[in-house]
């Protein structure tokens, strides 16, 4: 039981990383980034290509791939997203959705729909004794890294000047601007950062999950549910909801496997009935 709960947290680690990226992007730009899953997939493929074509190992990929894709995110924001944000939100909705399909199909065209091989880093091949039970080392690593990343993002947002500006710009963009802070300057890096987080999750996923063009679209639906549960745009909420949803689906699989497919969405519906803005959301997010 304890082990299963731990399990759920590992699954939740991916939700949390992805949801975190979505939340900062939504908070800062008001854009629901539907291409987030595609960037998660590109992260995993980036790791695969780095290994397959350039012989770069997992650790280098973990350091190199997310910034590179983050940079792609920056370009994307400059060229397209920026032009669409002043318009109806639907435009960016459609744009990012279309982009996801294009990216997916480009990868499909090149590599087919079959999964690609990606080995576990040999340093993390064994198991770790956690006192109460032993657990695959890689999964412990994933959980640890993801928790640290979420914590680091949280600290940056709450303790640093940059974080303060970003939070202020998220909550009251007009007021922040009125105080003489150039909000626009921070929009692009935040978008890139959100994308980099998705890519980071993708690289982490490569050794333990099937690396194929559809891996992102399979996962992202659940992640959207996570973001909604946590409260759209709430950074803390999305992380907490990510881990919580991981936990709930693991326990759901254990006790009521026939329902596990729908459990997350039942949870989402229940949360929305109880708190329409999500667990940690503010009503303002909907304006």
């Amino acid at each position, binding site marked *: 039981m304890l082990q299963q709960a731990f399990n759920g947290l590992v699954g939740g680690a991916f939700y949390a990383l992805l949801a975190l990226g979505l939340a900062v992007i939504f908070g800062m730009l008001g854009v629901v980034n539907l291409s987030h899953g595609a960037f998660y997939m590109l992260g995993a493929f980036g790791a695969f290509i780095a290994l397959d074509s350039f012989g770069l190992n997992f650790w280098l990929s973990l350091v190199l791939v997310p910034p590179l894709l983050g940079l792609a995110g920056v370009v994307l924001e400059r060229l397209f997203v920026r032009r669409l944000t002043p318009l109806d939100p639907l435009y960016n909705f459609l744009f990012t959705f279309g982009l996801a399909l294009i990216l997916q199909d480009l990868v*499909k065209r090149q590599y087919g729909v079959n999964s690609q091989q990606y080995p576990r880093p040999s340093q993390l091949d064994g198991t770790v004794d956690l006192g109460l039970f032993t657990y695959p080392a890689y999964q412990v690593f994933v959980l640890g890294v993801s928790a640290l990343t979420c914590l680091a993002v949280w600290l940056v947002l709450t303790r640093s000047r940059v974080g303060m500006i970003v939070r202020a710009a998220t909550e009251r963009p007009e007021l922040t601007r009125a105080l003489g802070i150039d909000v626009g300057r921070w929009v692009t890096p935040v978008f890139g950062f959100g994308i980099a987080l998705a890519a980071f999750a993708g690289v982490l996923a490569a050794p333990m999950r099937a690396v194929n063009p559809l891996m992102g679209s399979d996962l992202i639906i659940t992640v959207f549910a996570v973001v909604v549960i946590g409260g759209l745009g709430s950074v803390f909420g999305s992380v907490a909801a990510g881990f919580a949803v991981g936990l709930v689906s693991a326990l759901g699989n254990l006790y009521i496997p026939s329902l596990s497919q729908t459990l997350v969405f039942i949870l989402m519906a229940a949360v929305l009935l109880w708190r329409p803005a999500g667990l940690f959301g503010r009503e303002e997010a909907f304006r």
Partner: protein
Amino acid sequence: MRNMRWSGGLAVAGLLLAGCGGGPGGGGGKISNDKIVLAVLNDQSGIYADTSGRRSVEAVKMAVADFKAKYGDKAVTDKIEVLSADHQNKPEIANSKAQELYDRQHADVILDVPTSSAAFAVATTAKNKKKVFIDVGAASTELEGKQCNKYTFHYGYNSYMLAHSTGAEVTKDGGKSWYIVYPDYAFGQDMQKTFSTAIKEAGGTVVKTDPTPFPNDNFSTFLLKAPGLNPKPKVLGTMHAGGDLVNLVKQYNEYKLRDKGVDLAVGLLVISDIHSLGPDALAGTRYTDMWYWNLDGTARTWADKFQAKAGVRPTSNMAGNYSAALQYLEAVQRGGSDKSDEVVKQLEGHKFDDVFARHATIRAKDHLLLHDAYLGQVKPASEVKEPWDYVKVLKTIPAAEAFQPQPDPSCSL
């Protein structure tokens, strides 16, 4: 002037004669639209695109070329067209594409159609339009049961074949107790039932069966639970396919279940899955297939030709499409007509051997192709001598034992 008119007349007469006189084997007039049209309808962009998809279209084109080479001038016609369409695994798209292929593009036969729900839709269309449909890609036994009809054939494999070979053989071999996990949709549910039956018949027990969400990328709950079940299962049977299977096997290895005494058996394994995972991830896993490219010299020669064209080794599904197309053309040749009723008559009860189907009979009562199946075992990477050489064939399961011994009584053609 007069001479010219005469020669023109002669030319027209000659052309007319050539048209009516027709080819050998029963007259060109019996070929509708003066050509045979084979249409491959399958998944060309989704999860099954690499197990069949466009490469099966290539395989069908090879069948046409081989047919023409074999009969030359004696061929019933030399106008044979191959069409293809993407059904995206959706029944409603499969249905409308099938109608379009039969009606507007004059397809004489539709081939492949993976995903059982899509196959049922095409079977119904084939029945209504009285056109031939040979399904290669779908697994459901209902195609030769409740959904069977005069114009539909099921060619290659089905869930009975997979379950009765893998389930029974692994159980007899000491894997007496099973924990089965299956994706929660029609294919998984069907596989779970047939596997459970086969295991019990072979003297084994099914400790537990669990549905998993579909698609799913996290199987840790089930994998953690497996060794703790009471009694502890000796075999983890997975009925997953494609990306789900890859996820499950990666995580099975991560939890080191084999070291904990829980072996892995896979319901439906395609050679491209082994390629995705690397043989070591699956080493020792037993599964059943309808064909293997390195089965023997005949299969290998064909696989070489295929690789030269398509760039990869063929999956059994691609070889199945080749065979189905070839046997369709042979039936047209024998009967001298591509009229559906005549082709069906020629196919029913036909016995043959080809690159793909050995000791094969098309059972007249339910239109199921009976042929030899193979129990394979995945080799460890150290034993893999060449690319794609991942499987050791442990045993040939004779045609008579591989498939349902009796037609399903609910089928009436």
